[in-house]
């Protein structure tokens, strides 16, 4: 019974190339994906050899893949070289920066433990539905191998984010469906079907909450600035770096924007590097005074967490007052983020 809901044959469809019909489309999509983000090649490290193993015309597949890959990359080298104003092959730089740079650039954005994708990454996407995926691995081995391999390679990078799993979501949903089907068969379908549908429904509520409510202030602050700030003003975002969108969301070049940067240490000779944002939050009051002196900002944007630390200096010494307060989120995402966003104006 369980064997019937296996979709092993499904995966075989990908690779059972017994006819010699060409498939440029396949190579095209793989190459395009590689150009956009080189790490997307990871699952194909397994898929390509599998196709070659199954196909009756290996040489033809290889030549087609090579042609497609080379032509698309040449096109992209031309585009990027034109844009960067010098000969540029982005995938090479990408791998160098992420895996071979002496300062370990990606660790600048956070270091996560070895099993992060299983203990944090996957649970963040699936929540209580994750057990179905683990159950689903039982009867779809090829898909499971592909997923495990991809996650394994991602694990080699010390910086991990759950959005890196986006690419393999289409396969994970197949596992989830397999797991649900298996569970319903085990537990007798009619009795428990409503629980599954409830599980689906609650997920949608979570989706709406995060789409509409959580961290809304970090976007709506830009709407406020666009509509309410007159030209020639200088706005300083005293938040963790990149906490809001930037010029695109204001679409005006008559106001100056500044923010606390967090560039990683690209210089091999500098030791004990601390980026601008980290430096600021180490001693907020001192840094604030220095920054106000050098930037001469007329507006400050900050989270409630920072505001509570510096409000006395701002209001008594520096002549700033609270112009507007925006709701951001119910959840405090990090100690430097906050539930409210303060917009302060110099009087």
């Amino acid at each position, binding site marked *: 019974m369980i064997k*019937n*809901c296996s979709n092993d044959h499904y995966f075989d469809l990908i*690779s059972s*190339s017994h*006819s010699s*019909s060409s*498939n440029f*489309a*396949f190579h095209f*999509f*793989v190459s395009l994906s590689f*150009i*956009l*983000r080189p790490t*997307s090649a990871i699952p*194909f490290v397994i898929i390509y050899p599998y196709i070659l193993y199954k*196909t009756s015309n290996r040489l033809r597949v290889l030549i087609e893949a090579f042609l497609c890959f080379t032509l698309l990359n040449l096109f*992209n080298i031309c*585009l*990027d070289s034109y844009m*960067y104003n010098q000969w*540029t092959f*982005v995938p090479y730089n*990408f791998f160098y920066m992420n895996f071979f740079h002496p300062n370990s650039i990606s660790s600048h954005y956070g270091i996560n433990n070895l099993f992060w994708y299983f203990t944090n990454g996957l649970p963040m*996407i*699936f*929540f209580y539905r994750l057990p179905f995926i683990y159950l689903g691995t039982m009867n779809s081995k090829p898909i499971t191998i592909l997923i495990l391999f991809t996650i394994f390679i991602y694990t080699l990078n010390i910086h991990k*984010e759950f*959005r*890196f799993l*986006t690419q*393999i979501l*289409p396969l994970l*949903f*197949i596992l*989830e469906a397999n797991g*649900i*089907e298996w569970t319903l068969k085990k537990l007798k379908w009619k009795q428990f079907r409503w629980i599954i549908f409830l599980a*689906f429904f609650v997920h*949608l509520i979570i989706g*709406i909450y*995060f*789409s509409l*409510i*959580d*961290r809304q202030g970090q976007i709506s602050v830009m709407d406020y600035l666009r509509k309410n700030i007159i030209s020639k003003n200088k706005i300083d975002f005293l938040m963790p770096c*990149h*906490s*809001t*969108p*930037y*010029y*695109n*969301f*204001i*679409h005006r*070049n008559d106001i100056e924007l500044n923010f606390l940067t967090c*560039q*990683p240490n*690209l210089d091999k000779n500098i030791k004990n590097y601390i980026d601008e944002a980290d430096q600021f939050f180490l001693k907020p009051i001192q840094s604030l005074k220095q920054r106000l002196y050098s930037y001469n900002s007329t507006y400050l944007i900050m989270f409630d967490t920072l505001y509570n630390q510096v409000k006395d200096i701002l209001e008594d010494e520096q002549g700033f007052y609270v112009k507007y307060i925006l709701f951001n989120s119910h959840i405090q995402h990090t100690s430097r983020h906050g539930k409210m966003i303060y917009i302060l104006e110099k009087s």
Partner: protein
Amino acid sequence: MLLNKTHKILILILLFRLISWFIVRTYFIADEYWQTFEISHLLAFGYGYKTWEWRSDVAIRSYLYPFIISLIYRLAALFHLDTASILINSATLFQTFLAFIGDLAYLKFLHGHKLIFLILLCRFTCWYTMYSSPRLIINNLEEILFIFSLASAKKYD
């Protein structure tokens, strides 16, 4: 109106994508704004912030995706429709359209699968599908192209 089952599913999926495009108004990840929106805006209008990833001595991002978005921006500017909200929403609508094309390919890939309805239900009730798909995150394109490649690999037999 006579609609067969596939048509009904397609209309539901399209509706889902449009609702998702309409309701996503929150911040998710810096890369969406700083690696795509901002660079596209810089290309189209000449001002915007380039993070270190885009320095020519670093160059670890391809211009391909922001370049495509910047074409939309240029088109909007041509008709004097380049207000911030039109720019933002047209870019995310474009991404939503790509997601829908990805859904069509996913249907093609799953065609004939015993559990196709359950798989679609899993996909479209997952909170992350609604939350992430209209965003200009490069990982979304990765997913769409992965589906395209899976769907076209099926043609092999």
